[in-house]
């Protein structure tokens, strides 16, 4: 087995996902099958192969920096327009720090 139910719960914690027991069981079985398939990569000899960290690594140099000029920002009202709970010009969230 590639992944246990306990590991699924641990990863769900890292991913900030609440999962039901049924979801956890299904994910364990799905991920197990998928990870077994992924183990095929171990068959490939990648000695001395550079990881592809940039898509067009052979595409030649591109000037990717734009001129550093100020542009109008989105603005407070527009930024908050989709907030589930805006308040006093901010995004409101449940209390983080206890006094």
């Amino acid at each position, binding site marked *: 087995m590639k*992944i246990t139910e306990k*590991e*699924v719960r641990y*990863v*769900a914690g*890292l*991913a*900030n*996902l*609440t*999962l039901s027991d049924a*979801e956890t069981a*299904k*994910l364990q079985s*799905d*991920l197990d*099958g*998928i*990870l077994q*398939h*992924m*183990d*095929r*990569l*171990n*068959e*490939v000899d*990648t000695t001395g*192969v*550079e*990881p*592809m*960290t940039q*898509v*067009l*690594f*052979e*595409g030649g140099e*591109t*000037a*990717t*920096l*734009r*001129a550093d000029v100020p542009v109008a920002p*989105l603005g407070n009202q*527009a*930024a908050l*327009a*989709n*907030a*589930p*709970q805006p308040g006093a010009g901010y*995004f409101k*969230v*449940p*209390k*983080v720090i206890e006094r």
Partner: protein
Amino acid sequence: MDIPSLTIDRVRQALLSRQFSASELAAAALRFAEAENAKTNAYLHFCPERAMAAARRVDERIARGEDPGALGGVPVAVKDVIVTKGVKTTCGSRLLADYIPPYDATAVIRIEEAGGVILGKTNCDEFAMGSSNENSAFGPVRNPVAPDRVPGGSSGGSAAVVAQGTAVVSLGSDTGGSIRQPASFCGVVGVTPTYGRVSRYGLTAFASSLDHIGPLARSVKDAATVLAVIGGRDPRDSTSAEAPVPDYSAHLTGDVKGLKLGLPVEYLRHLTSETGDLISRGVDQLKALGCEVREISLPATEYAIACYYIIATAEASSNLARYDGVRYTFRSATGDTLADMYRNTRGEGFGAECKRRIMLGTYVLSAGYYSAYYLKAQKVRTLIARDFANAFQEVDAIVAPVSPFPAFKLGEKVDDPLAMYLSDIFTITGSLAGIPCMSVPCGKTAEGLPVGMQVLTKHFDETTMFRLADAFENVQKKQ
């Protein structure tokens, strides 16, 4: 006016000869699309005010004696992962069911500057994750060619509207085949340009090193025209390329004599007989046009699925972290602490496929597994890109199938995620290499289901890709 038969050229001629105005066309197209939509569920919502305003601007240009623009008056549909200012953009997700973006994607701005009239937003798999459009929170799309079958995914709605005739062209997004596969299932043209050819600004991020915006259309020429409009450097996407965008449609000469084409031997092993027969027939037709066809080898192909689903899910787990109940409309009603609010919002908001991919991506990036999975996959990605680079030393273009099989029945594959992932084998390799690739119709099975042929060329050589696909389309249309 017969809306399903319109092309970009026909719209232009009709507007310039005052056969109808852009406003008349937009109103008629909206009426038609709204009436037809119940058959497919391809549009999620329409934006009539925006469409009519865009059409009026085109009419004003014509009245002033100006050119209406390359897409003047053309009805366009946009996949609902591409943001539209003031028009709901849901990404097919319950999490964003009420999200109204405060800005436009660059591709959307360019479509409207060229006179295009955006009618509405199209259905898709949630956050573009899926190969059947069955992962939409707003119900699946039915394939207009065969209503009991899927349209493909994730740009299922964008392929369906073009096939159905409820838009002339559409925008989709492609991360591992999400434009090409639905195009092949619905019998239309779908283009994934070179990575960086089209700005991703305003495309909701799924896997940033693999995401593309591209056009779907009923002809190669229309797809080429749209790509010329949306392509080119955008200062708001640092990965968008400086390379100049050619006038693709001027290169559709029909002459492909002497073009060297490669047929990857590894791909042909996976084919069901009917799709394989149609591709073979297509290759014979290309030979008859004077192309030289030879077999080539892309040896890393068998590792592409594993490589892709590691990289794509790793990037997705990171990109989707932003949907936490703070900024984007949906927040769980339960959760007294900040952490519980995050977890419950995401647990209630994301559908099963998104959760699966977030979990997989989080796992492969987690401590102890990074080198074994993510770093290894990035190295294999280099090998896949090298395979293509080697092949393009010998050939001008590669022809291949798009999908191992035609459109399958709704519900047929939902219970087996790995089987669904494995069906992406032919489209994923080109995505990983970042090269341009497209699907062009290649005939129908005995049951009448469309099959697409894929054409792939080297980075930034969309011109050769379009020229070959256009010549092939001419042969197909004569049959």
